[in-house]
């Protein structure tokens, strides 16, 4: 198909799916420390040349929603213009003592725990406002968690398209196949956000899915 027809077909498809006036808003969801912000930073660095948020080893580093508008993804002659919504990780519990292991004082750890609860509420509220989701799962961990199931159930109920990003495949203990086997009905893209492995596969899936 000639390039201009392909582009037109893609834009028509997007308009059909989302309407002319509806902005694409891609939310990053998943557990704390699954690599949402690392991935969001890689994408914004790739496409607009600057990071979106801070990354750290300490869980719940992202405690409020970060938004980057007008990120343009160009892939295979197609373009996708969207906003990135980087959300705090969703969890059902927060124990401030876990933060003490990372060298935080008790006061800092309790403060971080309080902020994290607000961040989780904010992340849940954003489910009403995103038009597509990248559900980031750490491939070295058990994917079958209540938080992941809850997020997917809500996305399906709200008919929001999503891609499961099996992250951290650069680590030797990573098992993206397990994520495939647990969620065979969904699109799973194994990547390393840190090393940039297979990122183009994810961009292709985003163009196809969103």
């Amino acid at each position, binding site marked *: 198909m000639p390039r201009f027809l392909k582009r037109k077909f893609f834009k028509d498809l997007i308009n059909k799916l989302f309407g002319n006036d509806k902005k694409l808003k891609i939310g990053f969801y998943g557990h704390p420390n699954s690599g949402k912000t690392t991935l969001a930073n890689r994408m914004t660095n790739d496409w607009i040349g600057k990071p979106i948020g801070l990354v750290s080893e300490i869980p719940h580093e992202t405690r409020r929603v970060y938004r980057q508008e007008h990120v343009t993804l160009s892939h295979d002659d197609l373009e996708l213009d969207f906003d990135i919504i980087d959300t705090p990780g969703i*969890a059902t519990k927060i*124990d401030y003592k876990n933060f003490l292991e990372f060298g935080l004082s008790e006061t800092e750890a309790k403060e971080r725990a309080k902020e994290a609860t607000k961040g*989780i509420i904010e992340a*849940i509220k954003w489910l009403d406002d995103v038009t597509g989701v990248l559900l980031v799962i750490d491939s070295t961990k058990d994917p079958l968690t*209540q938080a992941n199931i*809850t997020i997917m*159930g809500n996305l399906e*109920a709200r008919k929001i398209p999503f891609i499961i990003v099996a992250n951290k495949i650069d680590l030797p203990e990573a098992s993206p196949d397990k994520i495939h086997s647990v969620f065979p009905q969904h699109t799973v893209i194994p990547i390393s956000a840190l090393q940039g492995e297979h990122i183009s596969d994810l961009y292709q899936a985003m163009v196809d899915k969103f």
Partner: protein
Amino acid sequence: MDANTNGLKMDFLSSSMLNSSTSMEKISMIVNRVKNGDLVVIEGGLTPEEEAELIEATMREIDVDNFMGIDIYTLEKDKKSFFGLSKSKIVGITIIGPANVMKAVKKKSNFLSMIANLGDLNASMH
């Protein structure tokens, strides 16, 4: 936690009881019990929207010194279909409890095993 016996209190809620309640009533019924240290076993499951509301309500109730949140586990069963060919699953029971009590959970497709931590006491249930 039962104050009189220092034991683990478990409340079993039937689906008919839950179905007669609004989502808000269900969530508040669960959160109040779990915050009190009790374990709630419900027949069937919550809708995805109710699960999200439950997490939201839990986050509002977290008190970093006394209540760190909840753990939720479900046991699925095969969905009955007219021709008996369906492979889909539905939630048979849902167990929700305080995160500091539900210490170790082993889950397989048709089996759930949990160790409840009651401070010096330990209760094992299968």
